[in-house]
């Protein structure tokens, strides 16, 4: 059972310290460096495809081989890029962001961002460190 109110494992001050820490700034930078440009890229590529299908149907009907036309190939290309971006994101997260996030989580659980406090109080932090 969890109590109905939010479990507060850390003090607001600890969250502030963690947020201001250089490693957190780096974690966010690495996350954004991948996620934001990639989102712009795949949304643009998708919208380009939708717009081409809508406003350039003749171009999209160009036969490439047999009955397979450009529109169908670009559509299948959307599937391909979706799979590739999924893979790239997982690789990026595993290499770039997970190590920092895991390390910070460990330190937060041991209340290492609490300024001026000594060894963590086991009754507060104990439950969160398992798992």
């Amino acid at each position, binding site marked *: 059972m969890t109590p109905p109110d939010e479990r507060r494992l*850390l003090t607001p001050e600890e969250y502030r310290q963690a947020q201001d820490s250089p490693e957190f700034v780096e974690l966010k930078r690495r996350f954004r460096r991948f996620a934001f440009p*990639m*989102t712009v890229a795949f949304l643009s590529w*998708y919208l380009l495809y939708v717009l081409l299908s809508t406003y350039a149907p003749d171009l999209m009907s160009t036969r490439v081989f047999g*009955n397979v*036309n450009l529109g169908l190939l670009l559509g299948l290309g959307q599937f391909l890029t*979706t799979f590739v971006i999924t893979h790239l994101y997982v690789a990026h997260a595993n290499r770039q962001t997970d190590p920092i996030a895991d390390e*910070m989580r460990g330190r937060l659980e041991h209340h290492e961002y609490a300024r001026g406090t000594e060894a963590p109080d086991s009754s507060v932090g104990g439950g969160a460190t398992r798992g």
Partner: protein
Amino acid sequence: MADLVTAADSGTIGEPAVNISIFAVFVAITLVITFRASRTNKSAADYYAAGRNISGTQNGLAIAGDYLSAASFLGIAGAIAVFGYDGFLYSIGFLVAWLVALLLVAELMRNTARFTMADVLAFRMRQGPVRTAAAISTLAVSLFYLLAQMSGAGGLVTLLLGVTGEAAQALVVVLVGALMIIYVLVGGMRGTTYVQIIKASLLIAGALVMTLWVLALYGFNLSALLGASVDNAVAGRDVLAPGAQYGATDTSKLDFVSLGLALVLGTAGLPHVLMRFYTVPTAKDARRSVVWAIWLIGIFYLFSLVIGYGAGALVGPDTILAAPGAVNSAAPLLAFELGGTILLGIIAGVAFATILAVVAGLTITASASFAHDVYASVIKKGKVPPNGEVKVARITAVVIGAISIGLGILALQAGLNIAFLVALAFAVAASANLPTILYTLFWKRFTTQGALWSMYGGLIACITLIIFSPVVSGAPIVEATGKSTSLIQGVDFSWFPLNNPGLVSIPLSFFLGWLGTILSKEKPDEAKWAELEVRAFTGIGAEKAVQH
């Protein structure tokens, strides 16, 4: 072919007894599993989030089961069979949308919330108003989605179970609704998850069989299959080129773009999809589940491309449109054409299972949102007796089940494409939810007023535009059926030309979120913002799996 035509004329195809028995087997198996799952349901985390110990792989399958609704299986295959290329766009939008969920939403939401979307949206805002708004939009999206599923059930009943007459059809919908209520009441999220996993496996296996079968008939030559569907298409329609459904006028072209936008931005705002992320123990499992979901959903849509063109080539659009259930009957008709009564029975059973599983997922999400956000947090201000919240959630599930039964009976006669109805649900999700989710996660200055303007503005704009669009009234009369495709016949109060409102309502909602924020005097809660960011990116404080 001749057999099929006469069978379609008489209203059913195949052997209803076979269809019903196969479906009954599925129901029996899933009910047993649901009752077993119910033994470990104790706390709210069990009921809403399956104790947070669903693995990433299982959750990926369950997401696929939740997402590959009747819209995907019946609607997309039917749209491709009849309109060709334009139907293909649905599947691409539905798939690419998952990248938004994977890159920007899934892990951060998993790390921050407990049970519902509102947990995140209200995190650093004034709880009452934001939770209420999020609950209202959750209910709105879920009801649109339910309408689509139930409408699909209506068509299937006539086609597959040999049930004719409005009273008998209504009885079947009541039965489907009652089953769904049992899954949700007894099994909670865990039972629902297992139903979805089983259904996803069956659906993907069934689609694989049909795909291979169709391809085998054409010597595994995609070009030959496409050629055959061209030969069989509605006269003068090029099913390989874009524009068969949407290319007629400037308005319909704009409608296509609007649809595309709603599809790609809707997924990451669907409450029942977001809720699935809370069933896994960690953010890494949330990521793993989305990766699984993307592969399963992508491969499934590739299958539906073949099934759709296969239905166009082997059954023919004229036969499909003349069958009960119209466009939505393409996949079952193809199954009958390929494998006769048995394959049809299997596919019909799978289609029913699909509707059951998706409707169960929607119901548990909507009931959780009401019980957790409105009842426990807003009405009772968090002072709820143990298990009081789950009790309310169960009562709400029954109410929502009853509403969806009512909607299903109303939707029985409507001949709308299900994929199209689902697209409207996506438009509501993309307008009312996604902007606020993104602002909450990534914009420090975002305030309560911004959230409310964006959510209510997006929701109201979206629904108003739908009400005054040709979806509800004023669409031209189709010669074949002698009826308008609008919900309401014989009147015309439409003034918004597009069927899908996304092109207007989504940008408007983003704009209102920004405007509401910069105009508000309220200072953002810095402490809560720090907590939200640190929790979202590091996963600290996220609830662990419940040990049993």
